[in-house]
């Protein structure tokens, strides 16, 4: 356990509206080893981004509340850190790349200043050294150091995302959280940015939590995968476990509803029936049961616990969680 960089245990985060809880994250646990890349996959509203924000203790308070659980970063609970500790941790130990590069940069500062700012906050260096470091970072993400004095609006979306990556990696964080880092980009630019993230991650042996709804990107980048539904991890394991032996009915549904590149003419897609549940009003029992084609009475009554069906491969399902052969 000590070799895990990040251990999230039974995390529950609610938002409150008019005194009623919106159950964004429910009893969620996963861990991430050093140098590993974990893909957190799920649809809109599944609690992906709330989980990411919780790791940095950035869930907006007081409307958001950490109900229970712990987030251990190198054995230290993030949720119990003081403001000073948090400030040192954010950007230094854990860095985040947000989805939208257009809004995550400051429009009135040059890109160089924004990179140098992080460097100066976290290490005792002179202004000149920070500038030099910022230029190096720009070069590293494939932008000429001479563009240090450019403003974000002078860059295209792909370039801005490179700047955001440079800021995130400026202090050699041990954990990089990438929240849909390429969703706002075109495919050819997405390919460039993914390639860059992979290279840099290997170079610095950074662990990464990649949040996405795109299973293609997960297949490309991740070693481990966790599938999140209604704020719970419903299945987790290595990429092989999920892609070759995906077991949870929701995982199965996600794969089935993708248009395949080798489909036949006139083939129909198999959407998961119904809609994702309202987190203000989660169904009793297993949250997926109203949409699940295999639901039984047990599923309607009690919420299943995660079961280890093969080493490291967990499934939270009454039907599929037992012997894989019956599935």
């Amino acid at each position: 356990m000590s070799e895990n960089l990040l251990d999230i245990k039974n995390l529950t985060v609610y938002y409150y509206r008019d005194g009623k809880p919106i159950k964004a994250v429910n009893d969620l646990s996963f861990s991430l080893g050093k140098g590993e890349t974990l893909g957190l996959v799920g649809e809109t509203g599944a609690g992906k981004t709330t989980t990411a924000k919780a790791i940095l203790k950035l869930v907006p308070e007081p409307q958001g509340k950490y109900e229970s659980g712990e987030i251990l970063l190198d054995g230290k609970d993030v949720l119990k850190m003081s403001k000073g500790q948090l400030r040192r941790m954010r950007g230094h130990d854990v860095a985040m790349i947000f989805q939208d590069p257009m809004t995550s940069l400051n429009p009135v500062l040059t890109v160089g200043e924004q990179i140098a700012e992080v460097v100066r906050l976290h290490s005792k260096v002179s202004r000149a050294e920070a500038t030099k470091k910022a230029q190096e970072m720009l070069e590293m993400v494939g932008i000429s150091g001479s563009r240090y004095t450019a403003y974000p609006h002078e860059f295209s979306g792909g370039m801005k995302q490179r700047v955001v990556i440079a800021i995130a990696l400026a202090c050699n964080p041990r954990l990089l959280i990438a929240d849909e880092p390429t969703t706002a980009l075109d495919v050819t630019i997405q390919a460039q940015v993914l390639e860059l993230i992979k290279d840099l991650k290997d170079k610095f042996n950074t662990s990464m939590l990649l949040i996405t709804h795109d299973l293609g990107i997960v297949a490309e980048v991740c070693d481990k995968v966790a599938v999140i539904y209604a704020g719970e991890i419903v299945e987790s394991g290595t990429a092989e476990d999920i892609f070759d032996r995906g077991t949870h009915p929701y995982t199965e549904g996600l794969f089935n509803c993708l248009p395949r590149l080798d489909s036949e003419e006139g083939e129909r897609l198999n959407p998961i029936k119904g809609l994702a549940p309202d987190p203000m009003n989660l169904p009793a029992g297993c949250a997926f049961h109203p949409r699940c084609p295999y639901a039984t009475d047990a599923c309607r009554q009690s919420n299943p616990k995660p079961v280890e069906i093969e080493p490291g491969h967990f499934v939270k399902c009454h039907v599929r969680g037992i012997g894989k052969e019956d599935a």
Partner: protein
Amino acid sequence: MAPLLEVKGLKKYFKTGSGLLHAVDDVSFSIEKGTTLGIVGESGCGKSTLGRVILHLLEPTDGQIFFEGRDITRVNKKELHELRKDMQIIFQDPYSSINPRMTVKEIIEEPLIIHNMYKSADERRHRVQELMDTVGLARRLGNAYPHELDGGRRQRIGVARALSLNPKFIVCDEPVSALDVSIQAQIINLLQDLQRELGLTYIFITHDLSVVRHISNEIGVMYLGQMVEKTNARELFKNQLHPYTKALLSAIPVPDIHNKSKRIILRGEISTPIDPADECRFSVRCNHACEQCRKGQPQLVEAEPNHFVACKRWQELKGRMEADAPMEV
């Protein structure tokens, strides 16, 4: 049989402070009745502008548009009003394309009122209910406001509204891009069912290549306002003749961990469409560009039967590109 829609040398230029922006530049194609033409390309390649020019939401700068054999390039207000019954559009963003202050029923009913389709309000209401059934919206939602509904249901309103006048032709401008995969699959199935039942013809504009392959009969690939390759959907995924198409298809992340096909990473980004030079517009990013690519623009030619490509070097590259990047799709 004459095609339902035919476009010849269509151009749309916009004046900007720094020059003339060539959003759509000399695009020609035709669509048979009951089929789907997919238009793919990256942001800023002119695919949405193309859809809008065809529907006269934007006026073309040059070129001709034929609908059912009739030249509709220049139409007056009255003709345009009539044309709207035949040609409709489904927009990308179901959040901003419907009026938040109207109920679901009112939104779907509005085109019927504008076009005075029914004599009595009862008949009209009946038609609204029929449309809601067609697109799978529960009747109880008739009095709901758009903010009460999720993205998938809102997009169903957009589909119902587009269908209300019994059009023959619909431009689907990224209709599923804002939706989650499970909802996306529902809307794609709906569009395909409607096409079969009502004999609709679609232009399906998207940047999602797996979606476009699934839904289209033919696919046109656009780059900086021009059509660079066009052929049958399956043929395009088997045999790409244009280096841009090849790179674009290789960049799609495939949800399969065993298929680590080689990606072609393109240099740089899409260049500016303002006053482009007289050269192949892809040449600055192309791994195979040479002297001749920088002199004059390539024409879209029929390289193989029903397979059009705009690249001067397609013949020499054909064997070569296959050799360096075998695609397994």
